[in-house]
């Protein structure tokens, strides 16, 4: 079981109010991602749930039980830290065994769980090494192993992939997703990378300055962003936001159109501009279009496959009207 409820939780550091009153329910077995720019309070929120920080007011309930004043160890949660936080003077085996040793699990049971975790994480060959002798990806796995053996009611991940390189990050992302499919345990995952959030989450919580901007499934957020901030934050490349006269035509303050919902043509279309940087990825082409008369920012267009245009070429863009997002003066969705 791993149902976590936050009820009017606030957190202040001295005078600074990091988290204003915040309500959130995380259901058993869900993979929830907290995402937001740096300094948005997402890590603080995770640490409140873990018990590493005390809430200023409000209540945290785990499986219906009030856990607000429980020490971290009693909450039945396991955390994977950004720095992995392995114990450098212990072997991998002892690192993984440490939480069980503290909990007084019998030796036989400890060995059984270590073997099982090591097998599922491909760590069996490294059990007697020190963390210092392992690569970044292996350390990450040890940290996950140390969390698994506790058989927690929920896993907490604090930007676990930020110290890995691009290729390894994609692999570990898949491994964690597969782990969730296999264990079906509640997982709470903090990241600043919206791609990680979109690919891994059942439910995304978008945070800005301690406030929840939107809660929903990845596709909810992609199709119906509640405000301009979420619209600009979710999706890669970023949504094009257009203000002024063009938006007024639609009767709103701002309209947004995603790069993949713009049709590009060299013959004709609704808007025109000149090609700036053209990024040819083979599978797609991203065009950055300047001088379109719709604002100062270049517009980004995604074209499937290839498009034989070069720097300085004239290009026409036509938005898919059905995929247009409309926002009012306060930046809220209309």
């Amino acid at each position, binding site marked *: 079981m791993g149902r976590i409820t936050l009820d009017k939780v606030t957190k202040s550091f001295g005078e600074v109010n990091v988290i204003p009153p915040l309500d959130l329910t995380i259901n058993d077995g869900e993979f929830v991602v907290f995402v937001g720019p740096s300094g948005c309070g997402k890590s603080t929120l995770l640490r409140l749930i873990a018990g*590493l920080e005390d809430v200023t007011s409000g209540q945290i309930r785990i499986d219906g039980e009030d856990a607000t004043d429980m020490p971290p*160890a009693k909450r039945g949660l396991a955390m994977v*830290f950004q720095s992995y*936080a392995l*114990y450098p003077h212990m072997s991998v085996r002892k690192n993984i065994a*440490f939480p069980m040793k503290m909990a007084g699990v019998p030796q036989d049971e400890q060995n059984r769980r270590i073997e099982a975790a090591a097998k599922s994480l491909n760590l069996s060959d490294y059990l007697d090494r020190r963390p210092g002798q392992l690569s970044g990806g292996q350390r990450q796995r040890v940290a996950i192993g*140390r969390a698994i053996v506790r058989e927690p009611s929920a896993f907490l991940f604090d930007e676990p992939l930020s110290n890995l390189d691009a290729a390894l990050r994609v692999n570990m992302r898949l491994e964690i997703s597969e782990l969730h499919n296999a264990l079906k345990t509640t997982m709470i995952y903090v990241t600043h990378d919206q791609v990680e959030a979109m690919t891994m989450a059942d439910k995304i919580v978008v945070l800005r300055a301690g406030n929840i901007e939107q809660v929903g499934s990845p596709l909810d957020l992609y199709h119906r962003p509640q405000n301009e901030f979420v619209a600009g934050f979710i999706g890669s490349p970023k949504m094009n936001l257009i203000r002024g006269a063009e938006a007024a035509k639609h009767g709103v303050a701002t309209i947004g159109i995603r790069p993949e919902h713009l049709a590009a043509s060299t013959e004709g279309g609704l808007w025109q501009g000149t090609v700036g940087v053209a990024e040819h990825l083979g599978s797609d082409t991203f065009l950055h279009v300047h001088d379109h008369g719709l604002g100062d920012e270049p517009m980004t267009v995604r074209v499937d496959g290839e498009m034989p245009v070069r720097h300085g070429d004239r290009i026409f863009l036509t938005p898919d009207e059905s995929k247009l997002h409309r926002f009012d003066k306060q930046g809220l969705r209309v």
Partner: protein
Amino acid sequence: MLLITTVGGTLLALLMDQPFWGQGIVRILVIAPFFVMPTVSALVWKNMFMNPVNGLFAHLAKFFGLQPYDFLAQAPLGSIIFIVSWQWLPFATLILLTALQSLDQEQLEAAEMDGAGPLSRFFYIMLPHLARAITVVILIQTIFLLSVFAEILVTTNGGPGVASTNLTYLIYMQSLLQFDVGGGSAGGVVAIILANIVAIFLMRMIGKNLEA
């Protein structure tokens, strides 16, 4: 004598570490004695605190109705150990404090999540982390304690008898007070060799530290 001082100093410093985290002013006060010159400190202790007639301890003792105790005469070794410890404690504290602060906070938090209480955290996480720093402190102190000279000269002059004589003072006595230059030089060479054996261990430690 050396062992008692260093081990005692190390343990005391470890205990002292805990409350001082990040408190700048307290830290300066703690570290100040380290910068007081050995001769001065010995004199101050001798005359101001331990003097059986006018010393502060004597006054204290009288205040409680006890017999004033001539520390340097009755327990010369103990007194010297006390003075030297007082001087070297800040050094150990400084090094161990720096080492403690280099400990990754996330490791402690991970251990807390893993269910380790304060005592377990100290023994399983902090002590192994400090192991190297403790060794360095012990080695450096050993070298310097070999040459505690000023204190002995000023406070007890090596006496009574040779109860508080150490190697350096022995050399001094041999070669200058008894004009036995040969014996003194021999002692000097022995001392240099001794110091360098310890120094080699120390250099290896520091070398490892620089690599890590």
